[in-house]
């Protein structure tokens, strides 16, 4: 018991290992708990969580760009799109309808890394000329890029499937997998090749859990290396960092490319699971969602980004879709049932109103957090100091 207490005390300045341990345990037990709670009908929730993992990966990646290096990337979804489309083109029958005439079916596992690499290259290409711009300009350049990429894919005609996109993408395959009571089979290895289909969402969930663990370990290592230190220094005082020998443009580019790579990585998983890509899924709403997740959770803090992703994803994809029905029921029960229905003067019904609230929520989170609690839900100790000190500086300046 004292050993645990001593460990906790030693880590009070850096609560991250505890956060990671808690999250990992929660993630491992989540499907079990869900299946028990829903009497075996928990597949939907488990699948939803696997999809949430995609956003969590992106939040972790964007956190490197925004939180570590302090660069505002408003077009993050562009790299997500690039990753997904890379997967779609190289893991489907699609190429056979193009002038190449010959389909390519690379395995999912290799494509994860190819997509990552392609996205990283795109990040480097965009970043090289633009990262030396000041913050506002960089933000709007990335915003422009985020608008350009999906449109290019939509206009890509036969090469990218045009506006309808591409479907019937290959599913990931493994020579074997574990089967057990959750699919009503005896515990053991599957007899033949295992395919990740929508029939076995738990497999996707486990895969996502492994991928996230892998990425978190790598990014955590980065944070505690000379790169992490250099990013923090550049964020604080770029000129001083340069005077100390840090190639500021170079390491910003590195952060940007790593963020892009993570997004591409997530994109490949997303494309494979959905078995469908279309340029409509990669708009600004995705970029702003991921940004809100990082800001909400705590910029610069990996567990923060993860918690922010989990919380916001839950709100957007579980709570909000359910809310209309719940609220309508509530309204009826307190006698305001008339609110539930659309009427002639333009009120679309309570349910519809609530489901439109997504953007308002984002806006309130972004503004509210930055003004009221800029360090987010789970602040890194450093950030907390930086931002509370800044508000004091402002008080001093105003008092002058």
């Amino acid at each position, binding site marked *: 018991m004292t050993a645990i207490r001593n460990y906790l005390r030693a880590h009070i300045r850096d609560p991250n290992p505890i956060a990671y341990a808690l999250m990992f345990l929660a993630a491992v037990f989540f499907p079990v708990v869900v299946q028990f709670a829903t009497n075996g009908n928990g597949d939907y929730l488990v699948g939803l969580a696997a999809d949430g993992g995609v956003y969590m990966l992106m939040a972790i990646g964007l956190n490197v760009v*925004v939180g570590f290096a*302090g660069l*505002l990337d*408003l077009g993050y979804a562009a790299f997500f799109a690039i990753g997904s489309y890379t997967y779609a083109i190289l893991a489907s029958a699609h190429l056979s309808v193009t002038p190449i005439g010959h389909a390519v079916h690379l395995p999912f596992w290799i494509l994860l890394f190819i997509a990552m690499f392609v996205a990283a290259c795109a990040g480097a290409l965009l970043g090289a*000329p*633009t990262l*030396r*711009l*000041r*913050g*506002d*300009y960089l*933000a*709007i*350049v990335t*915003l*422009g*890029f985020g*608008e*350009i990429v999906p*449109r*290019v894919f*939509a*206009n890509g005609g036969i090469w990218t499937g045009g506006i309808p996109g591409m479907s019937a993408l290959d599913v990931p395959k493994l020579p074997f997998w574990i089967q057990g009571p959750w699919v009503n089979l005896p515990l053991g290895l599957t007899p033949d090749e295992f395919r990740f289909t929508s029939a076995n969402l738990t497999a996707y969930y486990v895969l996502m859990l492994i991928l996230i663990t892998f990425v978190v370990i790598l990014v955590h290592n980065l944070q505690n290396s000379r790169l992490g230190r250099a990013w923090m220094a550049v*964020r604080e005082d*770029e*000129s001083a960092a340069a005077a100390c020998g840090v190639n500021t*443009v170079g390491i910003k580019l590195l952060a940007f490319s790593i963020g892009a790579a993570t997004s591409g990585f997530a994109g490949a998983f997303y494309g494979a699971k959905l078995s469908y890509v279309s340029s409509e899924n990669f708009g*600004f709403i995705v970029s*702003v969602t991921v*940004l809100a997740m990082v*800001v909400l959770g705590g*910029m610069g803090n990996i567990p923060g980004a993860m918690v922010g992703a989990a919380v916001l994803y839950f709100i957007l994809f579980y709570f909000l879709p359910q809310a209309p029905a719940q609220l309508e029921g509530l309204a009826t029960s307190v006698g305001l049932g008339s609110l539930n229905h659309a009427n002639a003067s*333009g009120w*679309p019904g309570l349910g*519809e*109103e609530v489901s*439109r*609230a*997504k*953007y*308002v*929520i*984002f*806006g*309130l*989170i*972004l*503004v*509210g957090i*930055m*003004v009221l609690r*800029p360090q987010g839900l789970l602040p890194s100790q450093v950030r907390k100091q*930086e*931002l509370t000190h*800044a*508000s004091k*500086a*402002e008080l001093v*300046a105003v008092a002058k």
Partner: protein
Amino acid sequence: MVQRVRASVVAAPSASLINVVGAIVVAYVAVVAAQRIYHGGPVYFAQTLGFGLALGAIYALVALGYTMVYGIIELINFAHGDVFTLGAFFSLALMPAFGLTEGKSSGIGLILPLLGLFVVTMLFCAVVNVVIERVAYRPLRHAPRLAPLITAIGMSTLLEGLMFVWKGPFNLHYPDLLPETQVTIAPGVTIAAKALVVMGVALVLVIALTQFIGRSKLGKAMRATAQDRDAAQLMGIDINRTISATFFIGAVLAGAGGIIYGLYYNSVAAFDGFQYGLIAFTAAVFGGIGNIPGAALGGLIIGVVAAISDGYFAPAWTEVLIFSILIFVLVFRPTGLLGMRVPEK
């Protein structure tokens, strides 16, 4: 300050090569465009040009707000494009109150109620913009650079969300009150009267703005604050009030732009402002950020470029073109056409 000097130094060597390449590309495209314009004939060209100038006039009105705010606090007010859309929405809701209904009103009888509509809408937008500054930007004036950028995006999203909740994703119909006639500018060649009205209104507003900035005390205060905030403060200028005034005036123009937009296109939707704002900002940068004539000029040019792209090339690629222009200008010639008004230290 130092970083900005450094950045321009690093950009210089590659810029000269890219300038040459860029000039060649632009020349090539211009030649192809000229050919197509010639083949398309003067009638089509006049229509396209009218469309482009009207579009450009609206962009100019919105671009002015961006450029003034950027000039004074070096922040991109992402929400500005949504204030523009809000102007359209608000004026639409207010139209019955002014007795303006489609088909029923036209001609001279329109002018007074329209004027009233303009004034009320412009005031409303101005107040909204000032509140945005007060709530989202002022508390963060001394925070790390990233913070006000994030609240700016947040405000933009919030406004879009509110309009979305209010009116949904639908395209709202905006009454068609402008004259439908065509004005002849050459034998057989006409330009829509609508376009001329739009340009006229925009011109009046821009002239009013330029006079105000150039001559009034507040205008002087705005220019001084934009050049050197600390010195301005030492001269007794109330910085907070000056900044609020800048937001106020910028939104006045945007609100007017919103009404004109509605009258010309007869359709508004909640998320229109996002793209319009981005394109208007492109225009502001293109003309020279912080530079008022630059924003107006940039708006017109971008409008005409967009119209020519729509009319003679492929509409699907117009936005890609505009956003590419944005990136290229920022990377290779961030001072834009007419250069920055804010001098470097």
